[in-house]
């Protein structure tokens, strides 16, 4: 039961660039996912379900939608007098000349928050990994093993992300770290869920700052593989890294092929902001197959292999296949849509046809009328 003694830090902005379409008006953390969630919900819920009660969310830009979503943290039971949730706006460090540019500067800007937390351990996480994990087990094993730093990793195709770490391991000890990976290779890659003691984190960050370092992965993790015991924690359960719009589409569609039950385990609820929609309504001629449908939807047409977010309306005679339709979008009668990602509040006029390919879904931005 170490979790109450852990401070959770979430980077809401890291890797925004790899999903530039969806993050042009929001942070990675507030990217809509799985019909009613934002990506940050999975990290936050995992933390809460694991007993972590103090969480700081690092922000950089475009975080209005994130603040609107998170509010006081009440939906996650994190609106508290003791501990609770704090949104950490960008901190203008002396000499850094504006908003932070990397993870390390972000940590530097929140050092006093981390120090004041009074927690003995810190768990760092990004938002682009979709998972529903037991962080408490990771922390418990970290303590038991006597490791200085624990990094969760997964074996598989390495995501094409800037500064992604891949590991060579001897048992559970990481012996070599490669930062940045190009091309299609398989390996043990980092999920960027990192645990260490607060004291160590503070020391590493301050000294890195003092030396003018600017790369967390290279200067904090990779450089220390021999001087510190850096442990790898293998994750075998559901954990998917969003690395591009294509992978966002693929991971979403994967939910329709049985991964739904892996991600939404009954004893690990995923919390999100409630909207008080009515339950979904199916009309007389509705024809829905293999789809994930959120509340507030009104379906009168044909829907196949789709993810429909809250409040989506599919009019009679509309045909929507292999697509992700976000909150409050409206598909008029006679419209045909295949392999598309429609952002919030998109209106498709009667009879319009949109068709992408499974390997190249088309994206329609927020509030656009087609």
């Amino acid at each position, binding site marked *: 039961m170490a979790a109450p003694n852990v401070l959770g830090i979430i980077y809401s902005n890291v890797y925004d660039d790899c999903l530039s379409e969806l993050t042009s008006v929001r942070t990675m953390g507030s990217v809509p996912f799985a019909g009613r969630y934002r990506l940050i919900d999975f990290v936050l819920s995992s933390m809460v379900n694991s007993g972590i009660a103090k969480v700081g969310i690092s922000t950089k830009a475009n975080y209005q939608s994130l603040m609107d979503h998170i509010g006081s943290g009440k939906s996650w039971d994190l609106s508290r007098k003791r501990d609770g949730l704090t949104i950490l706006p960008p901190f203008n460090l002396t000499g850094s000349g504006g908003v932070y540019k990397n993870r390390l500067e972000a940590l530097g800007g929140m050092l006093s928050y981390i120090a004041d937390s009074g927690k003995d351990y810190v768990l760092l996480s990004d938002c682009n990994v979709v998972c529903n994990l037991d962080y408490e087990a990771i922390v418990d094993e970290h303590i038991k093993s006597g490791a200085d730093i624990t990094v969760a990793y997964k074996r598989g195709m390495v995501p094409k992300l800037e500064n992604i770490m891949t590991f060579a391991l001897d048992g559970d000890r990481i012996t070599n770290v490669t930062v940045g990976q190009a091309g299609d290779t398989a390996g043990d890659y980092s999920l960027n869920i990192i645990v260490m003691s607060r004291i160590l984190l503070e020391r590493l960050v301050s000294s890195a700052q003092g030396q003018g370092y600017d790369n967390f992965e290279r200067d904090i993790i990779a450089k220390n593989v021999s001087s510190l015991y850096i442990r790898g924690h293998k994750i075998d359960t559901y954990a998917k890294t969003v690395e591009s719009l294509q992978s966002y589409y693929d991971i979403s569609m994967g939910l329709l092929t049985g991964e*739904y039950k892996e991600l939404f385990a009954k004893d690990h609820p995923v919390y999100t902001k409630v909207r008080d929609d009515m*339950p*979904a309504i199916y009309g007389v001629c509705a024809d829905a197959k293999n*789809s994930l*449908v959120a509340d507030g939807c009104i379906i009168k047409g044909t829907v196949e292999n789709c993810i*429909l977010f809250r409040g989506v309306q599919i009019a009679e005679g509309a045909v929507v296949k292999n697509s992700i339709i976000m909150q409050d979008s409206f598909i008029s009668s006679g419209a045909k849509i295949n392999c598309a990602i429609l952002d919030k509040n998109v209106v498709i006029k009667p009879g319009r046809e949109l068709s992408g390919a499974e390997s190249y879904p088309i994206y329609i931005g927020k509030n656009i009328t087609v």
Partner: protein
Amino acid sequence: MVKKTECLAMLLAGGQGSRLGILTKNIAKPAVPYGGKYRIIDFPLSNCINSGIETVGVLTQYQPLELNDYIGNGGPWDLDRSYGGVHILSPYQQIKGTEWYKGTANAIYQNINFIDRYNPEYVAVLSGDHIYKMDYNKMLEYHKAKDAACTIAMLEVPWEEASRFGLMFVNDDGSISEFEEKPKNPKSNKASMGVYIFTWSKLRQYLIDDENNPDSGNDFGHDVIPAMHSKGERMFAFKFDGYWKDVGTIDSLWEANLDLLNPKVDLDLSDDSWRIYSRNPIAPPHFISAKAKVENSMVGEGCYIEGDVDYSILFSNVTIEEGATVRYSIIMPGTTVKAGAVVEYAIVAENAVIDEKAHVGESPEEIASLDAWGVTVIGEKVTIGKGATVKAKEMVDTDVKGEE
């Protein structure tokens, strides 16, 4: 300066709803699930907050545990306030002894102290077990404009149903000339909806007088309203013409649920300007499998559907397995209908299991006389065994063994 409470609402939620049988065995009628995610009390509570009434007393008596738990601090309805908000008012011990709420008027009488703390000008007395969307503020404006002591919300009902209601005769200016409580041969079809607004100073006195009258049944409809009328108080009827339903019986609960699937029924739950708030289930969006067929139905969050669903309401976390059929039915949260089972014309309460190939309910066409037909009810946590049959109109609250 603290904002003055102009109008406070007292919500009568102590009723058993005995005609709902096993559905209200462990919960009070206002806590009965309705409409795929709501409970009946969500309607009056949401009406209050949407009408700007921010102080609400909820009077509970019968099986209050689940209701108290559901209302909690009132957060889902924005009624968690440092001043006002929602208060659960249960009967309590007093120096002169302990008394249950003897009637609706006595329930308010016993909480005069609570109301006096907020010192409101007006008090709305509402039923916790009706389904309707109503702007109480408009009614309050009417009450003030008429300088009334009491205003009663009034609905014109079909003549053939009028004898089930408390009826009113209304003059051209809206004032009430006469009352008639559930008459055999109704002469009016203007029914009371059980929604009252009183000028508190007036009501306060009548409640004290009513309590001192040993012959009184301490009921609003039977005692307090007639007493005010006979003393010549200004009493007005406020006309309401939206959807309103008292879900007093199994059949009316079933009907009221299915009303939500009828586009002609004037009860839009997706209306942003008049949201019905509720304690939301924490569940993912529902999943419709490639083999499922869902038509003309309402489906809640967390459902996993692989079978056929037609003309039904599924609450959250319901599982319908492959080859199962659900039609003309209400399935409450957490229930599983297993492969090959059929549920029709039925209400299945929470966390029940309908095992493989069981058959619950009967279509009215299959039954010779319509009187023998009725909605079948399966109680909470009941298991209907493999291949077992439950007939029309039956109410089952213990497990039914299957074959084997």
